[in-house]
């Protein structure tokens, strides 16, 4: 028994030694030498790519640049991009990726289930209206105007949270499982106004200007995006350090300008 105990202690110590040696040398990714990144495209500006089953081919966008930047900082040469639907992203438990970039706002509730990296983007909520609303001259100028419209949102987003718990629109909001479905509903007039992160709606409008009415404005919510990791992930200190470096060396600012080039501070604020 004693021998066993000594052996167990030795093993435990050895493991601890390896673990503490870890951070200095190789980042603890799921598969050594590979960074597995979760995405849920499309979010114009942030990430677009071709979906092949669970794999995302040729992804491009701001979040892809950030992911590649982090990998470079961690000295990892290989990145695999996998699709992880946003509606299951904050489920508690182990994740099938090292970190996921899905325009995820850092919230206290979500932090109970997952770990977030240091923020890599700041955003507010935006309101994109349908062409029908624009042609009827009913583009909302205030939150009380917005309340009178058929509002829609995506499930599990801070936008939906805002609509249900702060805005309280007159008609029951329509809730879609994907961003794409909500944009389709907006395009075909089922939905009057889509409440979603302002960079996402603004970029979508910029890509397909004739499909929608104008971006009516933004609602100041001061949200910060973080990459999602399994709760208590050992990779977090590495990722945080990398994001801080990318922020101070100007890469983050450069990529934001490259992919968005929209001056959000000039957008009308709905109050």
């Amino acid at each position, binding site marked *: 028994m004693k021998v066993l105990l000594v052996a167990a202690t030795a093993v435990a110590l050895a493991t601890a030694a390896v673990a503490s040696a870890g951070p200095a040398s190789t980042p603890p990714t799921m598969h050594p030498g590979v960074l597995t990144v979760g995405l849920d495209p499309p979010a114009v500006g942030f990430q677009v790519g071709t979906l092949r089953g669970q794999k995302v081919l040729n992804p491009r966008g701001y979040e892809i640049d950030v992911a590649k930047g982090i990998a470079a900082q961690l000295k990892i040469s290989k990145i695999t991009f996998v699709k992880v639907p946003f*509606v299951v992203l904050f489920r508690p438990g182990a994740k099938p990726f090292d970190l996921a970039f899905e325009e995820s706002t850092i919230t206290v509730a979500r932090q109970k289930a997952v770990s977030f990296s240091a923020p890599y983007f700041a955003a507010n909520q935006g309101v994109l209206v349908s062409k029908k609303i624009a042609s009827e001259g009913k583009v909302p100028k205030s939150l009380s105007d917005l309340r009178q419209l058929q509002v829609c949102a995506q*499930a599990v987003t801070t936008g939906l949270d805002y609509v*249900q718990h702060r805005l309280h629109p007159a008609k029951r909001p329509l*809730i879609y499982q994907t961003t794409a479905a909500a944009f389709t*509903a907006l*395009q075909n007039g*089922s*939905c009057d106004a889509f409440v979603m992160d302002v960079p996402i709606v603004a970029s979508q409008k910029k890509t397909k200007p004739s499909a929608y009415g104008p971006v009516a404005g933004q609602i100041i919510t001061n949200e910060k995006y973080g990459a999602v990791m399994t709760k208590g992930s050992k990779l977090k200190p590495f990722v945080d350090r990398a994001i801080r470096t990318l922020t101070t060396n100007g890469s983050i600012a450069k990529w934001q300008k490259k992919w968005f080039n929209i001056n959000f501070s000039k957008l009308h604020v709905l109050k």
Partner: protein
Amino acid sequence: MHRFLEAFFSPHAFRQVFPDVWNGFQTNIRMMVLAELLVLAFALAIAVIRGLPGRGAWPLRALAVVYTDAFRGTPLILVAYMLALGLPGLGIHGISNRSPFVYGVAALTLVYTAYVTEVYRAGIESVHGSQRMAARSLGLSYGQALRYVVLPQAVRRVVPPLLNDFVGLQKDTAIISVAGVTEATVQAQNFGSSYFNYTGYVVAGVLFIFLTIPLARFTDHLVRERELRERALAG
């Protein structure tokens, strides 16, 4: 164990989530009642069309077969997506400006009418041909024989499988959430995703069960009644 109970059966979460889920569940009930009434009527019509005699009715019969084959074989979720996301974009007057609720009921009706048509047809075919011939020989027309002799027996026979399909329809109203309809499962999902508590799903599940149990007992009752009646006739 405590964590399990807390995640799925938290009394605190129950109080928070119940009003929303109940509110959403009323939408499920509305969808279900509307769809079931439409299905009953349309399915009977299509089953009768499939049984029409004569060469002249061939195109109608063919249409009925194509319809049942197509919609019995298509997953409901696909039909819901096609109607709710596809139709509004076409700009067809009267069709393209409906609410997701209407598209949801339409999807349920299209798919379940195809199932129930087959149920009705089985019932109609189970009535022995001699009955129809006897009715015709008494001077009843084809329509009268169908109306007064065949259908009453056929419908009575298929009530249990028909109600079984309706249990399926009731549960499938949850699928309509993909069309943007805010029903019980969506409300449960919203709560679950904000608080990482799944009591809402349990609440929705229990509500669905409570809805189907009376239907199941009613079916049992009908079956037993028919058995008794047939035994009385035989005796």
